[in-house]
């Protein structure tokens, strides 16, 4: 298949993830949708790496996966801390930081 098709799939997955981040209110699902967006970026990185025949893009995708794993660990730690403080696990209720 042409490289363009992979980029179209990547754009679709990114848009679905962005829509999920904007519409959902459960922070767990928002983290999952962030994963979707990172995966879409990974797919286009690997597609371009294949297009150039150069495996540097795959290293970039690997680093993105590492950063995503770190983000998941810290985000889930925050959700557990929120839950233990007996605060609502809902991003619309947690608005003290907005000033």
């Amino acid at each position: 298949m042409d490289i363009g098709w992979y980029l179209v799939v990547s754009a679709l997955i990114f848009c679905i993830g962005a829509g999920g981040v904007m519409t959902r209110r459960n922070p767990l699902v928002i983290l999952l949708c962030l994963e979707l967006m990172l995966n879409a970026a990974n797919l286009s990185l690997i597609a371009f790496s294949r297009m150039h025949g150069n495996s540097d893009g795959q290293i970039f995708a690997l680093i993105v996966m590492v950063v995503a794993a770190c983000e998941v660990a810290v985000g889930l730690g925050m959700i557990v801390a929120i839950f233990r403080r007996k605060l609502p696990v809902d991003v619309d209720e947690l608005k003290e930081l907005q000033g």
Partner: protein
Amino acid sequence: MSAVIFFIASIGALAGAIGVATLRNPFYSVLALVCHLIFLSALFLLLNAEFIAAAQVIVYAGAVTVLYVFVVSYVGDGSVPLGPGGVRLRNVALLFVGMLFVELCIALLGSGLKAIDTRGATNLGDFGTPAAIGESLLTKFLFPFEVASLLLLVAAVGAVMLARRRRGGTTIDDEPYDATRYITPRSLFSGTMAEAVGALHAPVEEPTKPRPQAPVPAPTRGSGSDGSDSDDDTQEG
């Protein structure tokens, strides 16, 4: 053949993505993410990225998802209904997403990259094999590799520090343990375990006088012998 696999894998990945974003129960969202990741690793395999595909299945679908499942089962499903203004904001968000997709398509169609309409480079060599990836990780990209390991350490320590027990504020650990929140107690003498082993005996029922049964034969008028029949008597009398 590769086109068929591409369409199957991309339809699966898109279906998984839609499931993640739309399913109500967060547990099902995590399962949809696993489905999405596995189909996405098939796409990676089609792009000759063998090591990345394997790492995707092992790291994401194996490890990260288990972390999600633990937290979902700890927090429970926080499925909340849309608040006031939620539907309107959702429409705005969907409009924004549509505009984003149109913009990405414009960028794709107007791209000056000629090779987008081809199948990519032809002579690949050891492109994407674990050997090639490992070699470039340890030679050309040694510094990002080490920084990534440091980042993982910082994130692990940070997650532990975030979720630990600390002073100030009230947490769910401050409440005294109340077993009745978690266990529904069973009434005594209904076949509990203590009775089965003989540690507890039901009190011997004292012989009571026999009550009149439901078909009472011709209640005696005005006698008032039994409480159950008295109101019938007052209606008639």
